[in-house]
Each structure stands twice: as C-alpha cells, then as structure tokens.
C-alpha cells in the first residue's frame, strides 16, 4: 500500500517534470525550424514582392503579392529560361525512366538467381554509387567530344543514366529480395513465365521502392550542376542549374526577380517530393535499415 502511494507520487512529479520538458523542447524545435525554413521563406516571400517592397522590408510576408516577377523571369529570364526549363524536364524524364527500367531488369536477376561472381558483381556495382563524377569527367569529355555528343541532351542523359544506375540497382535489388519466394514459385507453377512474374507480381508489390528511385533520380537530374556545366556549353542547350549563373548575372540587382527564378527552379521538385513522400522513406529505408 505504502509502496503504491509512493509510486503514484513519483509518477505525478514525473508528469509535471515532463510537461515542462515538453514546452522547452517545443521552443527549441520552433527555433530549429526557423533556421531550416528561413532561406526558403526568404526566397518565396521575396519572389512575390515588388522591388520597392523588398527594399523596405526584406523579412515580412508580402503584403500585396504579385506574380509579375515570375512572368518576367520566365519570359525574359536571360531570354532562354523556357528552353532551359524544357531541357531540364526532357533530361530528367528520359534519364530517370530509362534508369528505372534498366535497374528493374538488373535487380530482378540479382534477386532471383545466384551465378558465379554475382555477389562480387553486385557489391562492385553498389560501391560505384559513391564514386564522384569529377573522377570520370575528364576522359568522358574527350570521348563525348570525339562522338560529337557535347552540347547535346543525349550525351548528358547517357552520363546521368550511368551515374544513377548503381543507386537504383541497390535499392531495387534489396527490395526485390524481401518479396516472398513462395508467391513467385506459386505463380511459376500456375504457368506464369519468368518474364511475367516480374510484371505481374514483383512490380506491383515494389511500388514504394520504384517511386523512391523515381523521386531520388529526378532530384539528382534536376539539381545536377557539374556534368551539365561541362557538357552543355551553348546557351540554348543548358539546364536550369548550369544556366543559373547567366540568369543571376542578368538580374543581379533585382533580387525579387532572381528569387522568382529560383522559386520556379525549386517548385517542381518540392511538388514531386510531396507527391512521393508517402513512399519515399519506406522505400529508401527498406534496404539501408536492415538489422
């Protein structure tokens, strides 16, 4: 009995201590959020201001939001903004789709059979994931020049596919391996061919990891700077990121227009992320988080 009362008292004190603790943590996290969100807030809010409003107040939300900066940046942004936007979308879509298809095919084989050196080959492939592109870029530039693929979107697409494949193979193979073998065998007994097992059974189950690979790869293509900069030299063939300096130099003094341009470069990826976020963490962690 005494023991019980004592215990309850202790629990009460515990709860009070916890609630003070909680409000303190809430304040800490509000402050952390401020640090994380401030640059983005600065970009979006100022992109909606006129230059006068910006000069008078750099921090507040825009009081009379205007989309004029967006129109200016899009139509006159270095005169090429629309082309850069188009190039970026073309590269991101084609490279990502091809990468995902090739990675699915390879991941399927790795997950289903073992052959001589299969583990070694997979490990080698996975470790390519961390090799920075700067290492390959000098020889690749010579080769691409010889093949007349500099200043073409195909050249960049090809390099992006190569760079994205190791990560995609890694994520997809580890996900495919978690799929119940009995289900695949049952389908085979029912007369399903090895090809249709992939399309009818594995792909529908693997939606989270496939979407993850799509999102991560699109982000990579959209945000990539070095390769785009080296291989796309003519102004009209550039992507948004590799043209960002041209764009910025043109509107150096007009910060709201610059911010509108930057916002437009950011918004598509933010939307894509939020669309895929439900699957994103699940897909990304299925491989890396075992054990």
């Amino acid at each position, binding site marked *: 009995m005494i023991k019980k009362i004592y215990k309850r008292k202790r629990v009460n004190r515990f709860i009070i201590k916890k609630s003070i603790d*909680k409000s303190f943590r*809430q304040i*800490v*996290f509000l402050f*952390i*959020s401020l640090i*994380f*969100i401030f*640059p*983005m807030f*600065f*970009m979006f809010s100022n992109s909606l201001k006129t230059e006068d409003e910006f000069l008078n107040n*750099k921090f507040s939300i825009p009081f009379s939001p205007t989309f004029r900066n967006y129109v200016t940046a899009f139509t006159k942004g270095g005169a090429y903004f629309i082309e850069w936007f188009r190039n970026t979308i073309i590269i991101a879509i084609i490279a990502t789709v091809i990468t995902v298809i090739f990675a699915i*095919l*390879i991941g399927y084989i*790795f997950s*289903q*059979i073992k052959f001589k050196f299969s*583990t070694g080959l997979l*490990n080698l*492939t*996975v*470790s*390519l994931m961390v*090799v*920075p592109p*700067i290492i*390959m*870029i*000098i*020889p*690749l*530039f*010579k*080769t691409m020049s010889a093949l007349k693929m500099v200043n073409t979107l195909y050249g960049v697409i*090809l390099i992006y*596919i*190569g*760079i994205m*494949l190791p990560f995609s193979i*890694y994520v997809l193979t580890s996900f495919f391996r978690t799929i119940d073998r009995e289900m695949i065998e049952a389908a085979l007994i029912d007369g399903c061919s*090895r*090809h249709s097992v992939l399309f009818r059974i594995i792909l529908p189950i693997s939606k989270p990891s496939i979407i993850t690979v799509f999102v991560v790869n699109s*982000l990579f293509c959209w*945000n990539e*700077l*070095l390769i785009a900069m*080296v291989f796309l030299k003519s102004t009209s063939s550039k992507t948004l*990121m590799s043209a*960002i300096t041209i764009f*910025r130099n043109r509107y150096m003094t007009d*910060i709201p227009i*610059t911010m509108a341009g*930057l916002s437009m*470069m950011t918004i598509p990826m933010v939307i894509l992320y939020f669309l895929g*976020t439900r699957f994103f*963490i699940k897909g*990304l962690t299925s491989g*890396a*988080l075992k054990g």
Partner: protein
Amino acid sequence: MGITKKMAIGYMLPGYVIIIFIFAYPIIILFRDAFFNRVDNILTFVGLQNFKGLLADPIFYISLRNNFIFLIIVPIIVIISLVIAVLLYEGLFGWKVYRVIIFLPYILAIPVVSIIFIYTLAGNGPINDILINKLGIISKPILFFSSTKIAIWTLIGVIIWKEIGLGIVLFLARLMTVDEQLFEAAEIDGANWFHKFIHITIPQLKTIIEFYTLFTIITVFCWVFNYVFSSTNGGPGNSTYILELYIYKIAFRYNIPNVASCAAILLLVFVSFIIFIQFRVQRRFGVD
C-alpha cells in the same frame, strides 16, 4: 523454369553496357593519362612526372587541407541528427511537421541554396543587418563568404544545414522499429535521458549509424563540388579550394588534363579506401 543464362544476360546487358562506358572505361583512361603524356600524337610513358607537377602546386595542398577540414562535419552532423531524431521520436507535438521542415533543405538544389545564402549572408545583407542594427551583438558586419578565414566555416555551416535532414529521417525511421518496451523498462529503472541515449539508442542504431557515418565521410570529402563552385568558387584568395574544384579548374580552365588526372586518381584512391573500410566494418552494406 529457372532463369536461363540467355535471359539473365539479356536483362543485365543494357544497364551494364552503360555502367562500363560511364565508370570502367573512363577510369582506365584516367590511369593512362596520369602516366602517359601525348607528344605529337604518340603516347610516351612519363612515370611520376605528372604527379610531381601536382605536388609542386601550392593550391593542391590548400585543396587537400580543406578536404580534411570538411571532415569535421562528420561527427557534428552524426551527433546532432541523432539527438534531433531521438527528440522527435520521443513524441513532440507536431513532430511530423518538424520532420518535413528539417528534410526540406535536402531536396533543394545546391546552386539555388548558395545564391540565397550569398544574398542573406552578404556584408550588407539581412542577417548582418539583424545582428548589427536589431540585436546589436556585433559592430562590424561578418564577411561570411568574403573573408579568407571565415568563408570555409560558412561553407561547412551550409553543408550541415543542407545535409542533416537525411540523417534525421534515416535515424528516425530506424528508431520507429526499435521495441518501445526497451525505453520504458529503462525509464522505470530510473535511467535518465542521457543514459537511455548511450545505452539503448546508440547500440540499437549501431548499423545505421555506421552506414550514415561512412556515407557522410564520402559526401563531405568528394561530393561537395556544387557547394564550393556555386558559392565561393575557391575564393577568396584560393582559401576554399577543394580537390574536386581543383581537378575541374586544372582540367577545363588551365587545360592540363594529365595533372588533373593525377589528382582524380588520388581522390579515387581515397574513395576506394572508404569503400574497403565499409566492407570490412559492415558486411550488410552490399545486399549480400
């Protein structure tokens, strides 16, 4: 009914042709260019001559030093992201919103981030304005990007700000799979927050902590070109040069690809070394 050899090859070939073209072939050429010079269209073996050229360049040493300075980021980012993940895990009101906010920088493009920071951290920019006029903490503006002493630390701050979201999300996802009773039992036994952190959280998350640590080492050592190029571009006064930027400039601005190849090989050696450690420490990394 098994997968035939023909089918396996057919499935794997398209991807691997590209991988060989993008990785294997250039790396072979890289070694050739480092040890051979092309004179009158004839390859001549020059031994370590190109490496000597590299070692005679003071900017190479600055770059190498900065690469190692960047490694300071690793312990900072691992510890902070672990602590934040644990705090979020312990059930904070609105933790899902915080998780999204903290992860947002990770999806932004680095050049975009750099430009925003250049504006906000400029000598006459809004952050200095707050510090000087509103808070009165300092009297002279901090030259975040244009002081040879401070610029590298500003870059480190930006990299941490941008990269930390992934760590938090990974740790949080792993924490969700830890048996809650472990923490409850420890709490009943009177363990405080720090005890739980040291004796439960870290051992339970050991695998993912190792993975993330090595991942971050590689990120900050050889994937930071975008940060440096789009903000300081090596300046002021070459103080923020890093190996990647050095390779890029030597190869494409000063047109000495053979010396740049030597630097690229050094970077490759470092990457291989980390991968080697990765396989030793953690057999699970490769989907074995």
